[in-house]
Structure formats: C-alpha cells, structure tokens
C-alpha cells in the first residue's frame, strides 16, 4: 500500500482543493486505510470548530430601511479624473481656458444676446419693473455673469448654460435681481483673480435695496461648502452648525438665498457673517418669502465686487452622539488599556462632508425643541398679506426694504422680515462649564449614517482590582470593581470622560485570547477624579458566611419584672475562596441592624458607619481564608450600658 496520506493531502481531500486525479487517489487510499480514515476524522473534528461561528445573521428592518432610504437618493455621478493623464489634462486645461476667454468676450462684447434670450417678461412683473426703472437705468447691465468658487464660471439666465462642475448637493444659492447685475471678468478657477477683483469701484450704490420677488422658479448657482463644523450636544437633540462658503458679491445690493428643504434645521437660528471685508459688507435683513417654504433670503449691501468668505451658522436637530469605552486588563490585572469611542448618528436630512466635529458634554437649556421648530411650515408664523399687516399693529415697515414699492403691486405678496419680528432665542447657561471634545481631523457623516470614531486610547493605566462583598447591597455574591483615576499619573487626565458604557476584557490565557470580564455604565468623570467600575458578580471568588453560635445574655428587668434590655451575641465564620490564579483583595462589609454593637475579631476592621464594619482581606491565588468574628449587639436598656 502506498504511504499514508500527509496532513496536507488530507486537507486537500477534505476541502476538495486538489485536482480530480489527486482526489481519486486519496479516496482510494482512504477506502483501504483505517489509520488515514481515523486521521481524517480527527481533522474534520478540528475544523468542526469553524461551525461555532456559523450563526445566522439577520438584517434588522431598521437597517433595511436605512439602505432603502439611501437608494432613494439620486446617484452621484463620478467625476472623471482628467488629471490621471498628464497630456490629456493639459489639453483639457487649454480648452477650458479658451472657453473661459471666449465666454468672457461674448458677455462684454455682445450684451444684447442676454436680453434677447430673456424673452418677454411676465405681465405681473411689468409694474414692478416700471417702478424700478430708475435704478435699472443706473445699474442694470444686460449681461449676468456670476462667479463662484466651485468651478462654475458664469450663470447666464438665457438658455442651457448649465454649470459644468457644480456641487448639486449644496443648498445655498446666490441669487441676483436685475438691478444689481454687475459684470465681473474674474474666473472662479483663479483665486488670485478673484481677490484682485475685491476692490472698491467708484460706482455709487443705490440707497434703496432691490426687491426680490417670491418667485418659485429661479436659475441659480450653488457655491459649495468649504468648511463645516458641527457642535453636537448629547443632552438634547441640538447641534450647532457653522459652515464657511465663499460667496461672490457684486458691488451694490445682493440677495442670497438659503434653502433647507427636507432637513431639520431651525430657520429662526440662521445667521450669516462675512469673515473678510467686514467693514464693506453689511448684512441687512433675512427675509422669508411667502409661499416659498424652507427658504430664506439675505439682503446684503456690498461696497466691493468679488469673492468673500462667509460663515453661516444655524441649529439643527437629528445629529446625536454617545460615548462608549473598551478596557483590556493586563494579565496581572494591574494595568489596563482603554479605548474610548464615540458613535455619531446623522438623521438631520443633510450630508455633512469633511466636517470638523465637536461634541459637548453637559446639559443645555433650550426654549424650544429644534425638531419642532424645523417642522414648522413657516419660520415664525403663518404668512399674512401686507394689506392685513396694519391690523396686527401696523408697525411692519417693510416699505424701506422694498425699494419704495408699495400699494397694489405688493398687495398680494407676502414677506416676513426677521428684524421686525421677535426672534426665537436659544438660551445657554454656563456654557464655559461644559466640556468640548473635538474629533481629530474631519469626518464625513452622510445623512442616515452612523459613524464610530476613536476618541482616545490610553495604554498602561494603573488600576486596582478590588472585590467587594456586602449582602445588603448585592446579596450573597462578591462583586468585582476596577478602580483608577482620570489623571496624568494614570496616563489619562487630558480631558474629562463623558458618560457611557464600559466593557472590560481580560486576557484569558497566555496566547492572548481575550475574555469578557464585565461591563457597566459610567457617569461623567472629571479630571483628577477617581472612578470605580462595577464589573458585576465575580464568579471565581466565593464567600460563604455561617452563623456558628447565637446566644443572649445580660437581661435587665424593669419594675414589673419584664425584660427591658439584653445582649445578643453572634459568632460568624466567613469562608472566602479565591479560585483565581491571581492574588485578590476583598472588602467585606457586615451590617448589624443597630448602632449599638461591639465586635471581636482576630482580623482588623474599620467602623464603616454606625451600623456597619468593614474587613479588608488579601488572598493568595487559589487559596481559602477564614474570617471569624463575634458581634455583640445591645438592645433595650442595655444600649445605655454601651454609652457608659
């Protein structure tokens, strides 16, 4: 008979890894060789351990619904990486430059093309235009070139000049009205050119701002979000969003339109500030045009033309975070490695890309739930017509901002001006006492996604393992605790540790396999504060108290011959068994139900409180120890004898 099959051959046979010929040969051999069959059986038994992991995974309905929600979103088209081929990139760059040059010349040299393309104006707007004619005469230009930073060089409300590289997902919209059109020849692809254009021109700015009609159909460009910062509170459904966008302004009046459809932002909290050229830019009003929902327009007076960075802030709901921790005890349980994680969830309706994320620990007091504010149909109230405004106090002076357009032309229009109505306040108390965590770098948190991030990692945290036994608190089982301090000495202490669940693992053997030791929830741990983690029942440490003797004595009788005082004497024997391979320290607390007691024991103890004593014992690995004590409790008039 051929030599026995090797282990490799047996594996190949069992898992059909060899050729058909090898399989047949092995099969024939096995048919006639009991020893090899036995080895094969042994091998199978070993690999049967793999089946321990053959559990069924079930997808939750929640997960399916999240996936389905994702699928409802439009597919984002991948941008073809032109730069991958250097010669192709050069050709493309030349073409783009040529196109930009051509467009630029077309716009300045042939102004009438734009007007022709506009077609006839709607009749409803004619009257408005008439009243604006004076301003138009001063400022109107037939071209409507608009520049922003995303690669969109021009916006021409003529025909299909769709922006080539726009970010369709952003929602801030730069909107122009006809009387603030000022041509710029800068290209958004060239930041230097844009900055050069930020120079005051001599053209005077009209005193009256233009009117932005509440038109539902607009042609817009979408400046992308350059930076975004999220400050997420864990005590309330409340997140502060600060985002930076480069917006292109014209000298004169500008309308900027902000839309938040299908998100959970609180429109009453919207705010916008320029980060540059502040003295030349005046943000005058935020208006919420009637009939158009989830949309606001800022009126900005600018003395410059060009690109300016703006910061837009608002509150949103739907973002949340929670902390959790994993600790791994060393084999001797004297040190612990700890990893802190945060899980951030986003159901705000908006994707936040490359967001700097800050997490706030602490309670914030808010007047309204942001989610409720976000769901309002209109930011402040139901819209009312100008004709009815007088009936509500008559102090809504919107005429100033509408360029003097009053009367019938506006009778059916609706508009709200937040400067004129009381603004919802978000009250914050003691913010400086909260702690702020900043997640390193930036993170993309798409809508309906959750993300787990590492918040800190500390090695070799010195810990004290302690077992506690207290029947009144935990019954007849020992509880394991791990104690450490959140300070530098313990390789921590850089920040407070927010509340969350902790799971502790220990090394099960020398091969490094881990086993679960216990878990608990922790509350906020300030710096330099000691923390004791309750890891649950210790199954390898057993405590068995036995009452060995009980008697009463020292009876005192009153004048009637009734018992008025006596002593009870109990002798206890507590057997403590440590079946662990490590030495342990155990704290045993005994309660006596009275404050009048004396205790005798060969083991030292502390009086923990009026009715409790505490013993602290140390046990060697795999050892037993006996704790014996006799407790005398005083009752009735005998209590007085103790005081004497």
């Amino acid at each position, binding site marked *: 008979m051929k030599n026995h099959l090797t*282990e*490799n051959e047996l*594996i*190949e046979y069992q*898992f*059909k*890894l060899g050729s058909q010929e090898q399989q047949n040969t092995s099969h024939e051999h096995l048919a006639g060789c009991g020893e090899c069959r036995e080895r094969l059986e042994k*091998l199978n*038994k*070993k*690999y*049967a*351990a*793999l089946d*321990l*992991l*053959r*559990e*069924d*995974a*079930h*997808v939750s309905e929640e*997960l*399916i619904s*999240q*996936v*389905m929600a*994702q*699928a*409802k979103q439009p*597919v*984002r088209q991948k941008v073809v990486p032109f730069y991958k081929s250097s010669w192709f990139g050069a050709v493309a760059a030349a073409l783009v430059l040529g196109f930009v040059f051509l467009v630029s010349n077309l716009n300045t040299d042939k102004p009438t093309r734009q007007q022709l393309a506009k077609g006839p104006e709607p009749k409803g707007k004619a009257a408005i235009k008439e009243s604006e004619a004076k301003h138009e005469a001063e400022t109107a230009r037939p071209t409507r070139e608009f520049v922003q930073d995303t690669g969109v060089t021009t916006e021409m409300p003529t025909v299909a000049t769709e922006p080539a590289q726009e970010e369709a997902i952003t929602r801030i919209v730069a909107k122009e009205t006809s009387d603030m059109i000022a041509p710029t020849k800068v290209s958004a692809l060239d930041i230097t050119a844009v900055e050069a254009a930020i120079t005051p021109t001599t053209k005077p700015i009209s005193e009256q701002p233009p009117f932005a009609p509440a038109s539902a159909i607009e042609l817009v460009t979408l400046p992308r979000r350059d930076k975004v910062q999220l400050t997420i509170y864990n005590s309330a459904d409340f997140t502060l969003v600060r985002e930076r966008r480069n917006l292109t302004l014209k000298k004169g009046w500008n309308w900027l339109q902000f839309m938040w459809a299908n998100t959970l932002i609180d429109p009453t909290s919207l705010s916008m500030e320029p980060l540059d050229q502040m003295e030349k830019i005046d943000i005058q009003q935020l208006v919420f045009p009637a009939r158009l929902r989830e949309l606001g327009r800022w009126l900005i007076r600018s003395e410059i033309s060009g690109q300016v960075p703006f910061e837009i802030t608002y509150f949103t709901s739907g973002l949340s975070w929670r902390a959790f921790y*994993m600790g*791994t005890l060393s084999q001797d349980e004297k040190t612990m490695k700890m*990893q802190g*994680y945060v*899980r951030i969830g986003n159901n705000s309706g908006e994707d936040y890309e490359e967001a700097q994320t800050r997490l706030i620990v602490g309670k914030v007091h808010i007047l309204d739930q942001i989610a409720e504010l976000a769901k309002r149909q209109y930011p402040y109230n139901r819209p009312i017509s100008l004709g009815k405004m007088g009936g509500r106090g008559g102090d809504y002076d919107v005429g100033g901002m509408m360029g003097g357009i009053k009367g019938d032309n506006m009778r059916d229009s609706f508009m709200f001006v937040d400067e004129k109505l009381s603004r919802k306040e978000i009250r914050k108390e003691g913010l400086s006492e909260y702690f702020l965590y900043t997640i390193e770098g930036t993170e993309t948190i798409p809508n309906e*996604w*959750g*993300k*787990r*991030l*590492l918040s800190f*990692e500390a090695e070799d945290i010195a810990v004290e393992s302690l077992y506690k036994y207290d029947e009144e608190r935990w019954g007849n089982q020992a509880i394991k605790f791990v104690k450490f301090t959140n300070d530098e000495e313990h390789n921590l202490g850089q920040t407070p540790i927010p509340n969350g669940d902790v*799971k502790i*693992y220990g090394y*099960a053997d020398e091969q490094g*396999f*881990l*086993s*679960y030791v*216990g*878990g*608990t929830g922790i509350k906020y741990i300030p710096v330099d504060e000691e923390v004791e983690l309750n890891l*649950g*029942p210790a199954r390898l440490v057993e405590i068995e108290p036995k009452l060995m003797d009980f008697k009463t004595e020292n009876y005192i009788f009153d004048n009637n011959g009734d018992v008025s005082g006596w002593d009870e004497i109990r002798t206890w024997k507590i057997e403590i068994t440590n079946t662990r391979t490590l030495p342990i320290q155990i704290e045993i607390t005994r309660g006596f139900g009275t404050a009048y007691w004396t205790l005798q024991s060969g083991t030292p103890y502390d009086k923990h409180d009026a009715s409790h004593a505490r013993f602290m014992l140390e046990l060697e690995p795999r050892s037993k120890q006996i704790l014996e004590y006799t407790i005398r409790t005083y009752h009735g008039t005998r209590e007085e004898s103790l005081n004497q």
Partner: protein
Amino acid sequence: MENTDKSLIDAHCQGDPAAFGELVRRYGDRVLGYLIKMSGNREQAEDLFQETFKRVHEKAHTFRGPQFKSWLFKIATNAALDGRRRSRRMKAISLNQQFDSDNMNSEQLGVIATADDSYNPSEQASKAEQTEQVRQAIELLPERQRATLVLAYYQQLSYTDVAQVLGCSVGTVKTQMFRALKTLADKLPEI
C-alpha cells in the same frame, strides 16, 4: 413566480424602488453574515452593509450578469477591504461584536440563561470561549485568506464563484484556502 436577480436589477435601474428592496431582503442576511465575519464586528458590519448596497445602487447600471450573487459579494468584499483600511486607526476589538449583538451584561445573560432548563453554565462558558477563539483565529488571517475562507466555507460559494468575487484564478483561491486552513489547524480549539 419569483423574479430573477437580473430582472430585479433591471427594474431597479428603471426606478422601481420595490425591486431594490427585494434584492436587499433576498441577500441581506448573507451579506451581513459575510461582513460580520470579515470585520469581526457587527456595528462595523452594518456600516459596511449600508456601503455595499449603496454601491450596488450606484453601480446597478453596470451589472451585466450572469451571477448577481458573485457581483454582490465582490462589492461587499471591496467595501470590507476599504472599510478595514479606513478604520485601521480605530483598532476595533472584535469582541465588541459579542456585546453589540446582544447588548447584555453578564448578569442579564445569567437571568436569561437560567430561565432555560437546558442551561449549563460551564458548558455555555466553554462554548463561548471556543467561539471566541475561532473568531480570533479567523480575524488573524490575512484579508484575502479570510475572504476566501468566509466565502467558500461559510457562504458556501464554489471556488469558481469565489474566484469571480475576488478577481483571481481558481488556483489562487485554492491556494489561499489551503493556507487559511493550515493556519487555522494550529489555532482552532478542540471541541
């Protein structure tokens, strides 16, 4: 009559949301099981699950057949490998999965277990430990070997299908499988 995978994909491309849902339900459990074993962590696996079906949604129009299952697992494998590269700095401990999935502490486990008449604490503890050893052993395998093992052994794909998923030859798949089994032979617990 049950719709074929191809017909569902075609319907999805034409905007039928129900078709995509049916695909998710049809393959969801298997894909999630695969991703749990690939990532060693249910929470991460759920993220990868979303990513996988996001990619399926986005790339549906590129599917040319014939086997949707291989194509799907190929996407899941790429998502898992990408996810692993991204999350390397997080150094997630695989054991976390154990708790994420049941989210119980030892006391709760005790209560539930004692309600079951067949509960045997030492047996349960021993089985849990062995399961953990298997999980650890698989997790320590190189990514390709792990993917091969999980696809061939747990997902019961043929070596030809595994080769399609991983984009390599059948011979390479068999070599990876053999190496994985050899490594595991020393690390699997005796049961």
